[in-house]
């Protein structure tokens, strides 16, 4: 295109141009311009679209991998960090592919083609241009590096300010209680003064970039004019060629600078990619054995713990557990907070594997069952259940393939949830969570019980699921739950003697060991944790009854 401009100017300069020729040149200019714009669009459209396709696939892969990783992974990784990897790291990788490809090809094409055309047109002016642009690019790189460093320092200070705010707002009771508002504000002022200083330092370097570049561009222009101008006056160069060069000057400035940007982008992309790759390469600790798939039939629902110990880090959390639970019986588990009750139940569902010893179902080591078979047998309800922000129907039928309302209604009825559901605006279609109805602790627990029994599992695990429910409701639920529990093997964790007494056997766990085992009647006669618990709860009842 600059070539056509040059021809027009040369023609005008030497007065050799005819109207027809001018029309022709203008038409050519328009045609190349249109083609150029078309390509300018494609060069953006294609790599960016591609990068989004890659991002999509990679994100899917990562999530799929995450669904396979087990508790020990989630215990060490914070959800926030994982979120970052699935969102901002993904974005950085995508940008480094998309923008890298876009700017990379653009820079390459522009630089190579413009250099060749320029060199053919006039080698001396080309040399002059590069002598301005190369130092400019180098200086630009250096300043940019400085900008990044200052920017990072500023960013760190920004998060310091926001942490200070956060701390002040969440510790407001303490601040007010000790009347420290004025001192706190004073500290905040200081922090913000420092922030201004750091911001201005960053701005001082950043704001210099644009004027500096523009000035270099001016410098290039005038150098071409002076150097080329002498030759025009000598008659060895035309104004048209000169103009052509100022055009190249204009075309070349961005690609060169974009180069530095692309470099840093690729670098950041690499860092993010490594972080994502680390997760993709993490093997789940709870994996199925190859031979496990050999047994498709469900085993019988008796459970046995054989010399089971579990250590996490240096601490032994369960030691030497030996326990037989015949199919169809109910076992009650109790003990102080943190004694290992929940861990014991989690071993059955292979949320973790014991450090030594085996857990058997129907006489088969559960590690020899496929995870789908094993977990398909189990209905699990936890003390602090996770419910999903969907309809109640979805939540109750969560573990059932193609649930029908019959099963859902039945499960809700057993967990004494129906009365509550009647009061919800959309009954079973009510959305749970922030955007819908926020359930009380007791309602959440009862929903989780419904979810577990809706599967009609062979093994039912109820981990302290009635702790947030008052005694009367608890009694009502237990009455309905009784027949359901009687049909299957049930592990039942509780702190309340009133519910524990329903079980066939009660096990007391203290400090990771089984210290007492027997029926309710046996245990209240033994001195120990269970008898103490019983006395205390009777006193409490008396206190509440006196209201």
């Amino acid at each position: 295109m600059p070539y056509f401009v040059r021809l027009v100017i040369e023609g005008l300069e030497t007065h050799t141009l005819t109207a027809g020729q001018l029309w022709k040149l203008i038409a050519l200019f328009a045609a190349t311009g249109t083609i150029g714009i078309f390509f300018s669009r494609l060069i953006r459209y294609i790599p960016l679209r591609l990068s989004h396709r890659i991002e999509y696939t990679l994100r899917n892969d990562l999530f799929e991998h995450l669904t396979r990783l087990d508790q020990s992974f989630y215990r060490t990784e914070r959800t926030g960090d994982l979120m970052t990897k699935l969102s901002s790291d993904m974005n950085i990788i995508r940008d480094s592919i998309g923008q890298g490809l876009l700017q990379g090809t653009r820079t390459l094409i522009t630089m190579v083609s413009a250099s060749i055309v320029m060199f053919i047109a006039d080698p001396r002016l080309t040399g002059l241009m590069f002598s301005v642009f190369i130092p400019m690019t180098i200086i630009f790189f250096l300043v940019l590096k400085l900008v990044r460093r200052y920017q990072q320092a500023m960013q760190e200070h920004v998060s310091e300010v926001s942490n200070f705010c956060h701390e002040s707002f969440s510790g407001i009771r303490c601040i007010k209680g000790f009347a420290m508002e004025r001192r706190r504000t004073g500290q905040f002022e200081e922090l913000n003064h420092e922030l201004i200083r750091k911001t201005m330092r960053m701005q001082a370097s950043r704001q210099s970039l644009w004027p500096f570049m523009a000035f270099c561009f001016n410098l290039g222009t005038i150098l071409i004019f002076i150097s080329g101008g002498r030759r025009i006056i000598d008659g060895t160069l035309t104004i048209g060629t000169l103009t052509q060069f100022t055009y190249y000057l204009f075309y070349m400035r961005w690609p060169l600078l974009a180069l530095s940007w692309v470099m840093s982008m690729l670098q950041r992309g690499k860092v993010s990619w490594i972080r994502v790759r680390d997760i993709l390469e993490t093997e789940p600790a709870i994996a199925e054995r190859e031979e496990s798939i050999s047994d498709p039939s469900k085993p019988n629902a008796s459970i046995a713990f054989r010399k089971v110990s579990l250590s996490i880090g240096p601490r032994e959390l369960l030691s030497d557990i030996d326990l037989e639970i015949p199919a169809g019986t109910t076992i009650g588990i109790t003990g102080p907070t943190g004694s290992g009750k929940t861990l014991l139940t989690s071993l059955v569902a292979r949320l973790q594997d014991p450090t030594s010893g085996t857990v058997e179902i129907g006489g088969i080591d559960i590690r020899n069952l496929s995870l789908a078979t094993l977990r398909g047998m189990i209905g699990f309800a936890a003390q602090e259940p996770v419910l999903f922000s969907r309809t109640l129907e979805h939540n109750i039928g969560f573990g059932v393939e193609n649930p029908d309302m019959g099963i859902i209604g039945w499960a809700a009825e057993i967990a004494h949830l129906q009365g509550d559901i009647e009061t919800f605006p959309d009954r079973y279609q009510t959305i749970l969570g922030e955007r819908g109805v926020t359930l009380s602790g007791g309602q959440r627990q009862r929903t989780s019980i419904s979810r577990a029994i809706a599967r009609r599992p062979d093994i039912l695990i109820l981990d302290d699921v009635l702790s947030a429910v008052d005694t009367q409701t608890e009694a009502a639920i237990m009455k309905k739950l009784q027949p359901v529990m009687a049909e299957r093997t049930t592990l039942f964790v509780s702190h309340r003697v009133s519910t524990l007494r329903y079980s066939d056997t009660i096990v007391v766990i203290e400090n990771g060991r089984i210290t007492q085992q027997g029926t309710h009647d046996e245990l209240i006669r033994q001195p120990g944790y269970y008898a103490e618990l019983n006395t205390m709860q009777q006193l409490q009842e008396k206190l509440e009854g006196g209201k």
Partner: protein
Amino acid sequence: MNKGKRLLAYSRPYWRSLTASLVMILGMTLALNYLPLLLRRITDECFEKTDTAAAERIALLIRLGMIYLLYAGLGHLVRYVQSMLTAWIGQKIIYDLRLDVFRKVLRMHQGFFDKTAVGTLMSRATSDIDRLQHFVTEGVVGSIADLAMLIGIMGYMLYMSPLLSFSIFTTLPFLFAVMLYVNIRLRNANRDIRDRQSRLNALVQEDLTGMTTIQLFNREAYAMVEFDDRNSHLRSAYFDEVRWFSLYFPAIEAGQTIAVLITLAVGGFAILNGSEAVTIGTFIAFLAYVQNFFHPLGSLSDKAGAFQVALASTERIFSLLDSEEAIIDPEEPLAPDRIAGAIAFNKVWFAYNESHWVIRNLSFSVEPGQSLAVVGATGAGKSTIINLIGRFYDVQQGAVTIDSTDVRQFAKHDLRARLGYVFQDPFIFTSSVADNIGLNNPGISRNDIIRAARTVNAHDFIDAMPEGYDTVLNERGNGLSLGQKQLLVMARTLAQDPELLFVLDEATASVDTATEMLIQDALGKLMANRTSIVIAHRLSTIRHADRILVMRQGELVDQGTHDELMARDGYYRQLYELLLHSPDQ
């Protein structure tokens, strides 16, 4: 516009700098846009005037070249200074505003914090303010600079050749409209992306927290389907963005091409027809102007959209600044030198939420220097008593008095400076151990801090920390056990030397017996010689109190010493026996 005016008021203290900035914009516009004019002179006077001697023309070329460089250098320097000045003004305005927000939040009453999430307050103090800062510096002043640039270029163009200028200008409204359109579509696409990204994030957040549940119920495949659904939604929003983004720069390029085309056509034919108005120099100058023309045009269309976002932030910030403070200091607060320490509740009724009374018709008094223990089941209204004395909330009926003066007659700040609190969950500031005890109170020396720590048995473990009293703790109190944190907080309270003391004493299962002994000992020392009210769960604190208040559902059931109450064999005795059997004792 009221909000605009109010925002403008924040810039008033800096009007001098703002004026200077505007003058600089003017100077810069004139200088920088003069440059193509110089190119015209070079072309016309040095290259085209073949009748003048070559040497003379070269001398003129060099002289004009120097002037060009000088103008360019000056212009860009002024531009740099101006942008720095603008950035500084923006920072200052935001500084004032942020401080106003911070002060306002600290002034708000406790009830406000019960209803407002910390996250919401954070986004006012950070992201909303940032958005505003962006708008003030880059938006307002940037638009003025862009506009000035545009007008400057147009002025020079008109001056050189009205014919060429008008023919180029006719395309402007059309071009601006196209760019604005693309910009709006781009912004919509970006909004879609944000929406869908946050929908995806919400799903991922929930699935990651509930991963165990998903795995237990064999729902991995289903979770994957849902994820894929939202992920592909996000992708299609991105595709939409790519469609418009890939049009944006080509649109600018198209504008430039059209402008050059017009210059070539109109200018070319004018010269061909022998018109005097257009020279080759004009031609070259125009080609230079056209290149600079589209940058300010693009950024103007960009800022037009950002305006609305900033307006929403402004509105949120001002509505926070305007929220009503419920607990207000009296016009002429009382400030006695020293409080004797007699606390009395006089027929007090109080509810956090209307109609649900937490305290019902409560009357009691504490003599100076006495210690009072309040006992009762959870929800009996015990801790509310403490909240009312410190004016975290005001009573609905009746009065709370200190030395027979209604607490509402004190200034909150002065009142609370005399009170000391030990809360059940110790709050640790991100700061050194010493600052956590002294709370940056200038009246508390390092010696006072160490003495306080010694008294409450905290000195030993502090001394054992890597940098002793200068060890920096974070908000979660890194490395400290709960018991140690409680001791630290007691040292803090003791160092402040309060005239009245309130303790929320929650017996905690996770504190080991040795630390528990230290805490009980420290509590005793803290309460010595001070009027103190303890919301008690530890048997030892209850037994040692001068008097015990027994509460039940917001009402006073009984009061007296431990022995008296035990002798009565009532509600207190039942409570006491329950505590005796609780595993935490």
